[in-house]
C-alpha cells in the first residue's frame, strides 16, 4: 500500500519532451511523464496547463508534434486510441464513453464484441451474448459493483456512480498495463466518489497502475502515491503527497511557491 518508492522500478509508461501545438497555442511544451508499476499517479494542474492534452497523447487520441512515448522503455507510436488499447492502456474518459441505451453487458464489450464459436459466429456473425453477459457479471461482482441481474439493465437507468463503476470495470477488464482515469469523481456525489476511490485502490491492489487526472485535491491526496504537477505546459514537480500539503500543491500549481528541488522528481525519499 505504500508508495513503491524504495525499490527502484522502471516506469511502465513514460513520456519524454512532449510538445503539442494547436495553431499558435503551445498546449504542452517539452513535458515529461513517468508512471511506475503498481502505483497511483495523481496528475494535477490548473485549467489550461495542458494536462488533458498530455493524457490524450498517452491514450493515443492525439499525436505529439515532438517528443516520444515509451512503454517499458521502448518507444511506441499510437496512431489512435485503438493502438493504445492494443498496447494495454485503457482510458476512463470524463464522459465515460458509455452508450446509454445499451445494456451494461453490451457496454462492457462495446467495440470488442465476441462472436459465437463455429459457423454461427463466423458466417452468421452471431454474438456470444450469453458469454459476454457472464463475463460482465463476473467482472462486476469481483469489483463488488453490481447485483447480478443488472447486467441486462440499460446504462441510462443507472446512477452516476454506477455508470462510473461500469466504465472502470470495463477499463480494468481489458487494461492489461495501465488505466488512465480522467476526472472520475467530477460528476459524482460524496458517497459515490468514495466508492470510486475505493475501486481505484482495489485496482491498484491487483497490480495495475493508474493515472488519475483530477481537480479534486482531497481525492488525489487520498489515493495517489505520487503527484505529478503540471504548469504552463510541462511537469514542474512530482511531490510525495505524504510529505506535502494540499496547499503546497496548489501553490506550486499556480506558481506561488517554488517547486521542490529536482531530486524529489522521480523517487520520493523513503519514509
Amino acid at each position, binding site marked *: 500500500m505504500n508508495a513503491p518508492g524504495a525499490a527502484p522500478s522502471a516506469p511502465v509508461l513514460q513520456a519524454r519532451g512532449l510538445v503539442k501545438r494547436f495553431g499558435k497555442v503551445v498546449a504542452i511544451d517539452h513535458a515529461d511523464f513517468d508512471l511506475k508499476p503498481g502505483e497511483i499517479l495523481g496528475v494535477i494542474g490548473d485549467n489550461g496547463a495542458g494536462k488533458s492534452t498530455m493524457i490524450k497523447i498517452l491514450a493515443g487520441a492525439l499525436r505529439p508534434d515532438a517528443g516520444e512515448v515509451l512503454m517499458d522503455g521502448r518507444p511506441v507510436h499510437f496512431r489512435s486510441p485503438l493502438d493504445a488499447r492494443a498496447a494495454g492502456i485503457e482510458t476512463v474518459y470524463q*464522459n465515460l464513453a458509455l452508450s446509454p*441505451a445499451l445494456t451494461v453487458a453490451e457496454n462492457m464489450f462495446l467495440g470488442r464484441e465476441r462472436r459465437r464459436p463455429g459457423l454461427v459466429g463466423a458466417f452468421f456473425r452471431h454474438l456470444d451474448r450469453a458469454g459476454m453477459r457472464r463475463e460482465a457479471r463476473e467482472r462486476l461482482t469481483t469489483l463488488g459493483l453490481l447485483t447480478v441481474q443488472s447486467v441486462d439493465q440499460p446504462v441510462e437507468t443507472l*446512477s452516476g456512480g454506477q455508470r462510473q463503476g461500469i466504465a472502470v470495470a470495463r477499463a480494468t477488464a481489458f487494461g492489461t498495463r495501465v488505466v488512465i482515469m480522467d476526472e472520475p469523481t467530477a460528476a459524482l456525489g460524496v458517497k459515490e466518489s468514495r466508492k470510486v476511490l475505493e475501486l481505484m485502490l482495489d485496482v491498484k491492489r491487483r497490480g495495475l497502475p493508474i493515472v488519475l487526472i483530477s*481537480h479534486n485535491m482531497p481525492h488525489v491526496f487520498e489515493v495517489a502515491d505520487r503527484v505529478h504537477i503540471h504548469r504552463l505546459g510541462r511537469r514542474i514537480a512530482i511531490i510525495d503527497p505524504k510529505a506535502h500539503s494540499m496547499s503546497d500543491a496548489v501553490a506550486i500549481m499556480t506558481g506561488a511557491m517554488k517547486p521542490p528541488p529536482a531530486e524529489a522528481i522521480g523517487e520520493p525519499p523513503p519514509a
Partner: protein
Amino acid sequence: MKGAPRRRLTMTNETEMAPLVPAAATAEAADATPARAEEHRSPGRRVQQFLHVYPTTIPFLVLLLGVIGFAFIAGGRFFHPLNLSLILQQVTIIAMVGIAQTLVILTAGIDLSVGAMMVLSSVVMGRLAVLSGVPVPLAFAAGILTGTACGFANGLVVTRLRLPPFIVTLGTWSVFGAVNLLYSKNQTLRYQEIAEVAPFLQATGRLFKIHDYLPLDFLGGAGVTTGSLLMIAFAFLTAYVLRRTAFGRHVYATGDDPESAQLVGIHVDRTLVAVYTLAGFLCSVAAWILIGRIGAVSPNAGATANLDSITAAVIGGTSLFGGRGSITGTLFGALIVGVFRNGLALAGLQNTWQELTVGLLIIVAVALDQWIRRLAT
C-alpha cells in the same frame, strides 16, 4: 442536441472535502451496497419505465385499438379476409422502405431520399429490360446496384463533408428525382410492355391465394404476395443483424452517442456509410416490390414513400434522436398507417381525414418518445 448529461464541477470545493483518511478507513464505503437508481415508483413513472424497456408496446396497443375500433365502425367489411389481405399488400412498400428508414434513423440521421432511390431503381430496371433490350437479370442487377450506389453516395457525403443528413438527403432527393425524370423522359412503362419482355420484374406482385393451398374456402381470394413475403424476409434479416451482430450494436451505439462510440473503438464513419448503403439497397428491393404491386414502371410512383417511411418508423417507436427503436416497431407502425387509412376509407371518410389522423398519430408518437427518453437522465 443530445441530452447527454455532462456536469462539470469546478475546482476543489474545500467544504465538501473528506478528511485525509488513509485508504483503509474508506473500506466501510465499500460494503455499502451500490445505490440503485432512485426508484420513485409512482404509477406514471412505472408506465414510463415499462415503456422504456418495451417500447413496442405502444404501437402494438395502437394497432390493437385501431383494429377493434374499425371493427365497430366498418363492421365485417374491415375483417373480411380480402380486405385484410389488401391491407398487407398496401403496407408492404411502406414497411420495406420503413425498414431502410429505421436503420438510418437509429443512427440519429434521416434519409429523405428513400422514395427517390426506390423509384430511380425501378425505372432503371424497367427501362433497361424493356426499352434497351438488356437481359432481364442484368437489368435487375443494374437496378439493385443503382439504389445501393445512391445510398453509398448519401453515406459518403454525410461522413466526408460532415453535413447534417437532413440536408444531404434533401439534396440527393432532388438529384435522384431529377436523374429519374431525365432518364425516364417522364414516360411510364405499361403493364403489358413489361409482361411481354420481363415478367420477372412483376413477380413480386404474384398473389398466393390461401384457398389454393388450404381448404379454407371462406377466405375467398385472400392471400399473400411474393412481395410481402420478401418484405417479411428482409424484416427478419435486418432485425437479426441489428440485434444479434456486433454491427447492429454499433448502429445503436453510433446513434446513441457518436463520441462515445468513437472512443470505444467503433468506426463510426464506416458504420454510417454501411447504414446508408444498406438503406439504398433495401430501397432497390422495394423498387422490385413496387413494380410488382403496380404492375407498371412509373417515374411518378411512390411519391408518398418518403414521408410514409418516416411515419412508420416514428409511430413504431423509433426515436428521431437515434439509438432507440426496432424493426418490429416499424412493422407495427406501417400496419397502423395501413389499418387507419383503410379503416377510415371503409368508414366513408375522405382522404383528408386519413391524413389528419395519421398526422395526429405522428405527433403523439414523438411526444411519447420524448416522455420515455426523459427517463434517461
